[in-house]
């Protein structure tokens, strides 16, 4: 799957002026990526070499996801024809950790990313946020409003996710076309604003909050347990080049 080359861009121009733009949708397993892609675009099947096996069904964590009946095999792919010569492609980055090797390929040259979050399982989106921060890929956070889930203020979520003040957090219903559309608009507006701002430097080593939702896990120092812990613990210290050190490698000063 991995391949060489580094200068891919989000805008593809053909001799006829046809352009294809990539947007990524990331987030934990069962958070609604497929639903959102399907709500706003023509969803197309795409086979990869990583089919979901019986083995992986046992591994996929579905605790707390009562209505999850379908799963993302490897990636979702939606197509929105904005104009004859301008097509938007939405890729749901595979939620399961064993598919992370595909993220680089999906991310290269993308316009930006939407991190879809479920406030009942906020820790599931830590790896995605860390990933996009480290690679300096513009992103926003969209909270999928699940029926019966407790609502949190955007500022609670911002603190729990240790997001910088200007990073947009939007609420959405991933099933709703208009709502899904608004999420994409918020992302493009954010990318445009970032491009306008001409990349001001971020302060180093800041941790903006206490890392916890009221009654829930947070990113920053409120350590989630399990396999995501290493990624989740990489709270933002600087927008440095890769390779990123693990928590154990970082000076604790």
């Amino acid at each position, binding site marked *: 799957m991995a391949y060489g080359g580094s200068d891919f861009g989000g805008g*593809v121009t053909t001799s006829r002026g046809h352009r294809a733009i990539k947007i990524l949708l990331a987030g934990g397993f069962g958070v609604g990526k497929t639903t959102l892609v399907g709500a706003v675009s023509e969803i197309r099947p795409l086979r990869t070499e990583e089919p979901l096996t019986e083995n992986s069904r046992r591994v996929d964590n579905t605790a707390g996801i009562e209505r999850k009946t379908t799963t993302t095999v490897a990636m979702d792919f939606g197509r929105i024809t904005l104009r004859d010569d301008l097509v938007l492609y939405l890729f749901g980055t595979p939620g399961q950790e064993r598919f992370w090797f595909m993220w680089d390929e999906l991310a290269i040259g993308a316009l930006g990313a939407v991190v879809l979050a479920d406030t009942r399982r906020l820790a599931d989106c830590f790896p995605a946020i860390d990933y996009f921060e480290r690679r300096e890929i513009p992103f926003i956070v969209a909270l999928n409003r699940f029926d019966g889930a407790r609502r949190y203020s955007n500022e609670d979520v911002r603190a729990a996710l240790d997001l910088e003040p200007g990073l947009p957090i939007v609420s959405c219903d991933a099933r709703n076309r208009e709502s899904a559309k608004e999420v994409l608009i918020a992302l*493009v507006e954010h990318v445009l604003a970032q491009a306008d701002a001409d990349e001001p430097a971020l302060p180093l080593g800041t941790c903006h909050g206490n890392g916890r939702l009221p009654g829930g896990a947070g990113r920053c120092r409120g350590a989630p347990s399990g396999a995501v812990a290493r990624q989740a613990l990489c709270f933002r210290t600087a927008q440095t080049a890769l390779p990123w050190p693990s928590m154990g490698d970082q000076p604790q000063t």
Partner: protein
Amino acid sequence: MASDDELWLDAQAGPVVRPYALTQGRTRHSGAAFDLVSTVTATSARVADPAALAPEHVSVLQLARRPTTVVDIASDVDLPLGVVRILLGDLRELGLVAIRAPVPVKARHVDKNTLREVLHGLRGL
């Protein structure tokens, strides 16, 4: 009894040939890398040796008569992305398709005019 030339395999029968058998076991395509949304367009070159092409090559070539993307082709021919890449690499080597690589992103962003066009397009959906 079915006659010898009657097609008794259909979509429901599932794949008869393992995907990478189509590629003679190759797992990487030839030539320069291309992105998932690289645009593929058939050239006007004629097929010099039809026997060199598998039916899947021909299917891919037909889809590329109009500009399309790598992922759209993979979806249309219902073959794994990795296999489609290899088939496209073959076709490119034979001069039968042009694969237009994405332009570099300026300062990490898609250029602003394109962003504005995307925004306008989304609002108009």
